[in-house]
């Protein structure tokens, strides 16, 4: 199983490569009011609009300001699409499919937590809208 591994608040997370559409940088994200705090805004890329989610904020941490070399990971899967912003991208790794416990993987002594985009999506759409984003 190929995973894209990235860092959020010094923890490592991984997403299966099948969900990754593109990784881009230097792209304009347009903020949208009345969205949950973790919603950074909208990204227009190759004719499509993506909701951009800041992962640190999504996990309940304060947003990391001034991220150096911010990269956006665009995810696309069955009928769904979104973009996520980690604090940093570590790279692609190959892991043996651990069928017993699909949540955590050990990579070089570090724990990599597997994220399922569907879970992020479900939680995101369940968040309340209407909070002030100034």
């Amino acid at each position, binding site marked *: 199983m190929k995973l894209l591994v990235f860092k959020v608040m010094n923890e490592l997370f991984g997403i299966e490569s099948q969900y990754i559409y593109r990784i881009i940088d230097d792209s304009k994200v347009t903020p949208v009011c*009345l969205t949950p705090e973790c919603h950074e805004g909208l990204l227009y890329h190759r004719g499509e609009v993506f909701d951009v989610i800041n992962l640190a904020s999504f996990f309940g941490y304060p947003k990391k300001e001034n991220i150096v070399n911010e990269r956006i990971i665009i995810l696309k899967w069955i009928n769904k699409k979104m973009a996520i912003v980690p604090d940093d991208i570590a790279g692609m790794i190959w892991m043996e499919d651990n069928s017993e416990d699909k949540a955590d993987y050990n990579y070089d002594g570090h724990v990599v937590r597997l994220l399922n985009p569907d879970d992020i999506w479900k939680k995101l759409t369940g968040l309340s809208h209407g909070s002030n984003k100034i």
Partner: protein
Amino acid sequence: MDLTKYEKIFSQESDKYLKELDDLLLNVEKDLSNQNLWTEIHGKIHSIKGMARALSFNRISDLCHLMEEWCLKFQKGASACSAASVQLIFDGSDILRSLVSKSGRIESLDEQKSYNTIIAKFQKSPEEYTEKNRNGAPAPASVVQPKLASIDHVKIRYSHIEELLGLTQEIQLLVKRFPPLLQDNLSAGLKNWVDHYNTLMKTLYFQLAQLRLMSFGDFADLFQKSIRNIAREHNKGVNVQVLGSEIQADITILERLREPMIHIFRNCIAHGIESPEERIGRNKTAEGRITIEAKSEKESLYIIIRDDGRGIDKSDIMRHLKEKQSLLDNDLNNMTEEEIFNTILSPDFSTAKATSDLSGRGIGMSVVAQTIEYMGGSLSISSILGKQTEFTIKLPISLSVIYAIVFTVGKHTLAVPTLNVQSIGRLYEHSENNAGLFYDLRKHIGIGDSEKRLSSFLTLKYANPPAGSESEMNGLKLLAETIIGNRPLMVLPVGDCLSKIKLYSGIGIMENGDICILLDVDNLP
């Protein structure tokens, strides 16, 4: 009354019917006594006649009427059809095409002569005409010389458009990343060249993106065969009428609607439209009719599917609600008719074993409704018992280009469709006294620095003014920080994540690729 719009619709619809008529004539030529084909041919001509009559295009309706009489005879087997008769109907179709393109006008002596000749021929009986042509030596020649239609369309794969769009965007990004072009000390000539190049690339992208639009007429055509097959499965006859063929919608949205629409058609045919015998008993035509209509209102696309079948008995639904969901009479009395019909769409209704008349309507409709809701749209049902059932799919704005006034408030770029703006003005110091008339979005949705003075405003006009406040709300002045201008926007749906926010009606992409949020002025908080 301006009839131009209706003439355009007439022309588009008639062209479609005439094309179908020619296809049917080609088939009937191989099977002259096929009464089903004659029924279909009759239906096409009848549809053109009906529309022509409504617009007082008498030449067209008169010719259609005579052609119909012939078809009726072949349909009922009252006259034997010959190859010469089919050729004459082909000729009639060519003349109709010519008349339709000129809104029923005849512009030359030759055209008048052709028209008179064909009318005279159709005034004879088919037998008389065939007999005459048998005795006369040559085979009937076409009375008109149809012009060869020019090839003005090509078919391309949708994925090819996506690839082109992607490449265009890549080229735009290349310019941004080529370091020499980002230097401040570029020569004026080179800078102009880069700017011009950028503008052209953005325009190219904007134009290419519009290739993603598909006409509703073409989309509706995709269902014709399925509807026919479903109708045959149920031993029923169904005519399909398409309205609003000219409406354009995003192919990605239409693609996702195909399954739900097939499901609705299946419901209409299986449970709405009665058997031919039952219909005749109710003084209806033996064949049912399904109308598929597209309308574009405000920033929504409406697709309406209507059958002229038995309708849904409201009292059966109410009985179901009382028995299965334990609703009291009082609860039912407080429900609107729309709410009652829409209970059919709830999962409870689908899984419950309702009365036999209703069960067919419910099964799977909740899945259809969920699919449409997932797209940010809604499905509603209305019905008149014994007459019709109507399914209305409302979808958020499809990909299209509209003009909108783009403005900023704080760091947010927003837009209001130009149709909803009466005027734009500047707010001077002395206008402060009228502060009550002004609407400051910052205070209502908490954006930007609410202390900063905003100096521009848009005077709004509403498509649907809020109830009870029409005079007050119409003319509301929406404050803005900077008015960017009246811009063409490529509009995309808001997507699942933002669809909960009723204030947004779409996402606008400006020609430079920047995003702005389209506001639904009827839903200002």
